[in-house]
Each structure stands twice: as structure tokens, then as C-alpha cells.
């Protein structure tokens, strides 16, 4: 209900403003997040962070119109439709769920409105003219991992990944990078999250005896394959992806997880970042701001994306305001051009450099390698 009152409040504010001065003077941002349903664990932290969003940017009033998409692509699409037809927003933020963001992208593109997705939505080339993403791509994460492997003197790698899209994406991204680094991919094995055992795959991997094994799995599902490999007496190094960089890995895997290398984004490990990491200052600012408002230890990857959204807006909106008035197609195009030309911008999640050709945008210095030491993630 709280959400509804806020919606009414937002609408009322918009109405009042239109009495005082013409509506097009305000900047309107449509926000569609999963505030209910299975994706709410990602959407609610983003909403919490947006509560700290500045009221004015570049001297103009900014209205956030927050709607719930209930983790439902259909609902997300109708939210997007409402944003572009009724609210005539200048910009859309959302959703934090890939499938919902994908459903919204067609409508945003059709209306010529920028959509900044809080999820790594993959669109065919040319389709993402109006879509920008806040999360890091696997390429960027894979880069940090391969660099670390090079430093460790690793020559051969085995791959054990999910049979789903996540595993496939990683395999596709990491294979050319490994080849470039002169590291040989000696065995590729797959498994599924509900599998009862990975003994056969582990047998095959350990008989190939690579210097390191990369496990591509998520959350608590990442522990079982690693235990399976260790069970077969594997002594080499084990790498995990950023989807496994959560306490669930240690909770399920226990002591055996010690020594595992995990790649991660910088935002949630702010204080631990080496001083040389460009995001350190921004990430600490995000964590302090967010935890001051929401309690100690409440930091969250998705709240970080919402913080980065604010960073981008504070840079791009003043640029766009110089070119056109809010509420016009020219202003919307100016936002898009601004995002593409804003250049290197330090986010809590890394260094962003969107360009006309690349709407993922993070630079290769973004990923951070962590090591599990006594059940804690420590920056390598």
C-alpha cells in the first residue's frame, strides 16, 4: 500500500507542478522494478537506493514514477507502455530482471526513449540502440579472471559449467580470452543444478589434470561441483564466477571452499578494494550512504546499480538540458547521445564507458579477484 501512496504522491506532485509551470520543464523518469514476486529480492534494494535520489538535477526538478512489475514480463511491458504514452517520460529505468527488461525494450525503442536496464539483458546487434545496461558483462569478469590465471602461471584449464544460458555465455566469452592468453582449455564438462552427483564429470576433468578448473554455477549451487572435484583428489586451483560470489557458497560448501578464487564486482567489497582500484572511493560512498539509511550490512549489488544510475544521471542530464527541453523527443535523443559520449565515468560497480558501439560499457579494470580464506572473501 505504501507503494500505492507513493504513486499517488508522485502523480499529485506532477499535477501540481504542471499548474505552477508547464509540465515539460520537469524531468520525468519512469522506474519499473520487481517489488513483488520472485525477483523482489533484487528490486526492493534498488527502490531503497532510489529513495536517496536527488530532487533536482542541473536546476531542474526530477520526478521518479516508480511502478511494480511483479517480476512479470507482461506487467513490465504494460508499465513501459504507460510510461511512454501517459507519463511521456524522458527516460526509463528497469527492470532488474532480464526477461522483464527484454519485454520492455521493444516499447522503449519504438518510442525513442532511453531504457537503462538493471539486468544484463542480451539483445541482438542493432536492437539495443536505446538500451543501456548497468550490470557488468561476462566479458569484463572473464578478463579479470584470465589476467589472474596468467599471473598464477596457469597453462591449462578445465571447464565445468551449467548446461543453461549462464554456462554457455561464460564458455563463449572465456574461450577466446583463454586462447589469447596462451592458456589451453583441455576439458569442457557440463552439469545441471539439480544433479545428484558430478562424480563422472569430475573423473574426466581430473584425468585431464589441468592447472586450474573453472566452475560456472550460481549461489549455493556452486558448492556441489567443487566438492565433487575435491572429492576426486584434485589439487589444482579452482575458479568460480561472480554468480557464486555470495555467502551461500561458503554456507553450503564449508571449510572445503578455502582457497577458491572468485571474481566479483567492486561495489559490495568497497572497503577491501586496493587503493589502486578506480572505484574504491565511489564504492565506499555508496556503501556508507546505503547502510546509513538501511542498516549495517544491508549493502547489495542491485542497490549499487541504482546508485550508479544516479551517478550517470547527474552527469548526463545537465548535458542534455543544454541541448533541449525535457518532455521533447529532442531531449530524449540528447540523453541517449549524452550516455554514449559521457566518457569514462567511475561507478560503484567499476568504470563505465558507454559508446555508440558498446551499450554494456564497463572497462576491463572493473572485475576484482577474491579468494576464500577461512570462509571469508578476501581481495587478492
Amino acid at each position, binding site marked *: 500500500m505504501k507503494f500505492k501512496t507513493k504513486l499517488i504522491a508522485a502523480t499529485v506532485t506532477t499535477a501540481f507542478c504542471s499548474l505552477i509551470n508547464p509540465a515539460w520543464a520537469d524531468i520525468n523518469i519512469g522506474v519499473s522494478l520487481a517489488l513483488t514476486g520472485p525477483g523482489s529480492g533484487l528490486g526492493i534494494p534498488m527502490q531503497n537506493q532510489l529513495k536517496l535520489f536527488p530532487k533536482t538535477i542541473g536546476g531542474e526538478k526530477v520526478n521518479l514514477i516508480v511502478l511494480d512489475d511483479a517480476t512479470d514480463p507482461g506487467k513490465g511491458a504494460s508499465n513501459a507502455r504507460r510510461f511512454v504514452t501517459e507519463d511521456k517520460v524522458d527516460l526509463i529505468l528497469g527492470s532488474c530482471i532480464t526477461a522483464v527488461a527484454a519485454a520492455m525494450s521493444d516499447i522503449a525503442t519504438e518510442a525513442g526513449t532511453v531504457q537503462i536496464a538493471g539486468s544484463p539483458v542480451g539483445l541482438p546487434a542493432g536492437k539495443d540502440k536505446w538500451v543501456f545496461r548497468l550490470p557488468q558483462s561476462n566479458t569484463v569478469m572473464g578478463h579479470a579472471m584470465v589476467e589472474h590465471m596468467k599471473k598464477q602461471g596457469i597453462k591449462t584449464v578445465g571447464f565445468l559449467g551449467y548446461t543453461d544460458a549462464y554456462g554457455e555465455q561464460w564458455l563463449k566469452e572465456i574461450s577466446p580470452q583463454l586462447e589469447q592468453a596462451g592458456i589451453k582449455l583441455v576439458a569442457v*564438462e557440463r552439469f545441471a543444478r*539439480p544433479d545428484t*552427483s558430478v*562424480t*563422472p564429470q569430475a*573423473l574426466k576433468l581430473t584425468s585431464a589434470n589441468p592447472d586450474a578448473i573453472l566452475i560456472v554455477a550460481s549461489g*549455493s*549451487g556452486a558448492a*556441489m561441483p567443487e566438492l565433487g572435484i575435491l572429492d576426486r583428489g584434485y589439487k589444482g586451483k579452482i575458479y568460480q564466477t561472480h554468480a557464486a560470489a555470495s555467502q551461500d557458497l561458503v554456507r553450503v560448501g564449508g571449510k572445503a571452499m578455502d582457497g577458491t578464487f572468485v571474481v566479483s564486482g567492486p561495489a559490495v567489497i568497497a572497503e577491501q578494494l586496493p587503493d589502486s582500484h578506480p572505484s574504491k572511493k565511489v564504492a565506499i560512498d555508496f556503501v556508507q550512504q546505503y547502510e546509513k539509511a538501511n542498516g549495517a550490512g544491508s549493502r547489495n549489488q542491485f542497490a549499487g546499480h541504482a546508485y550508479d544510475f544516479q551517478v550517470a544521471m547527474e552527469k548526463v542530464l545537465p548535458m542534455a538540458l543544454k541541448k533541449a527541453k525535457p518532455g521533447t523527443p529532442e531531449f530524449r535523443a540528447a540523453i541517449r547521445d549524452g550516455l554514449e559520449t559521457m566518457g569514462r565515468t567511475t561507478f560503484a560497480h567499476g568504470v563505465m564507458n558507454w559508446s555508440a558501439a558498446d551499450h554494456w560499457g564497463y572497462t576491463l579494470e572493473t572485475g576484482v579477484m577474491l579468494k576464500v580464506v577461512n570462509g571469508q572473501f578476501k581481495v587478492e
Partner: protein
Amino acid sequence: MDFSIASILLLDGMTNGAVYALLGLATVLVFTVTRVIFIPQGEFVSYGALTLAILQTGKVPGTVWLLMGLALVAALMEWRSSGLKSGLKTLLLPALASGLTWWAAPLQLPLLIQAILSIAVVTAFGPLVYRVAFQSLESASPLVLLIVSVGVHFAMTGFGLVFFGAEGYRSPSFWDTRFNLGSLTLTGQALIIFIAALALIAMLWLFFERTLFGKALRATAVNRTGARLMGVSTHTAGQLTFLLAAMIGAISGLLIGPSTTVFYDSGFLIGLKGFVAAVVAGLSSYPVALVGALFVGVVESFASFWASSFKEVIVFTLILPVLLWRSLTTVHSDEEH
């Protein structure tokens, strides 16, 4: 591939196969007595494993609340159909199981007692699921029962997500010893799986051969109308069958829990492999289901070794030649005698 790898794969396959065998037997049991193709069999597996895993953390598992809710619904249905006394009777056992677990949860009792509590809670689900979802449809066609069973599967998976959350758990091993036989390592847990599977099969055999209830179930399986004329209540037979199925599911969950991470939805795939074994047996023969399950386990293990991306494809394609062979060799007969 040399002999040592083959023997490791064989052992791994047989260990998983033993669990599939239990689930296959439960599927055959449920189908023969009630004609329900019981898709949610696997849900009892994840409920069992997750209940134990949460008891281990000292919290009250969500299954306790779910069980009470379901028991209330079943009791209300029973009250309306056969009076207050029988309604209260429906409530008694689930209330006892969940009350005891609720009381024992924060005490951090020994693993074995927690395991027994988990089995008790999940077993109590069986008759209630039958009462709520299937009892009033007893004489419906197998197709209707199958559709209801798919519905029950989705409901149970959904409740699993609500009560256990999206992340997985691993329950502790019952026996942490390892035996080395040459290149082969036999874990204590694998040994427990084999012993438990054999013991359960033996107990089921004794139950069906030696007890009145077992004989009544067999009679119902052979001829429902005939059994009813002889005074065997089909309601009781159905509920008893589901009780056994839930118990077998819960025990399978405890057996598989220490060797993998169990999620709220993990049971489905495990149960489906048991179902493949049951289909190999034509949903009617226990010994063939047993052999079929071990076969499924071994094929799965070798398939993961040779072509891990196509493992599930290989396991589930297996069902096609078997169905073809069965349809060519079996003489058609009506399912209702």
C-alpha cells in the same frame, strides 16, 4: 576409459540408482493401488532433505507450518463429509508430528533424532495430500488423476519456494567414513544408501506379504471393486499408499541430501528418473522397476562421463525404445479388471 574409471562410474551410478529405485517403487505402488501417476513423488524428496537441513540450523522448518495448514484443510473436508470425530482424527497425527518438531527444533538434538522427525513430518503429508487432492476423484479416469497430480506438483514446488527460499542446502552426512578398495572409494553415505534401500525393499515385501494392510493394498491393486466388496476401504487404501510413498520419498531425501545441494525444486528431476524406472516396469512390476532404476543410474553416470551436455537427453530418450518394446510385446488389456 580403463577398469578403475569404469568401476568408479558403476559405483556412482548404482548409488544414485538405488535412490531412483526407491522412488520408482513408490511410483509403481501408488499407481497400482490408486491409478495416480504420482508426479510430486520427487517433492517429498526435497521436502525431506530440506526439513532436515533446516532442523540442523536450529530453526523450525517451514514444512511444519505447511503441514498444519494442509491438515486443517483436510480436517475441514473430513468434518463436512463424515463428521467432527473423523475430522479431529485427521488432525491428530499431523499435529503430533509438527508439534513435536516445533518443540524439538531449537534443542539441537542428535542427527538421528532430527532425521526421524523430518521423516515423520514429511510422511504425514502423504495421507493429507491424498485426502485433499485425490480422494473425491477416486473413480475418475487416470488422465484426470494425472492432471490433478501435475497440479499438486506445481503447488508443492511453489510452497517449497515460499517455505524454504530459493537457495539450496546440504544436510550433513550420517557416516563420514571412507573405505578404499584399490582405486575405488566407498563412502559411508553410499553404504548407508545401499543398506537403507535394501532394508526398505525387504520391509515393503514383508508388509505386502505378511500384514493384513499390505494384503488389502494388494487386493485393491488387483481389483478395486472386488476389494471394496470384501470390505477394504478404498479411502484407507489410498491414504495408506500415499503415506508409504511420502515416507519413501522423505527417506530418499535424507539419503541423497548429504551428497548434493538440494533446492526446493530439485526433487522433480530426481523423481522423474524414478518415474522412468517405473515406466520401464510398465508401472506394475516391482522387481523390474528396481532393475530399471539401477540401469537408469548407471546410464546416467556413464553418459555424464562421455557427453555431459547430453546427459539428461540420453537418460530420458532411453524411455522410447522401452515403450516401443513394451507396446509390441504386451497384450492389450483394460486397466480396470
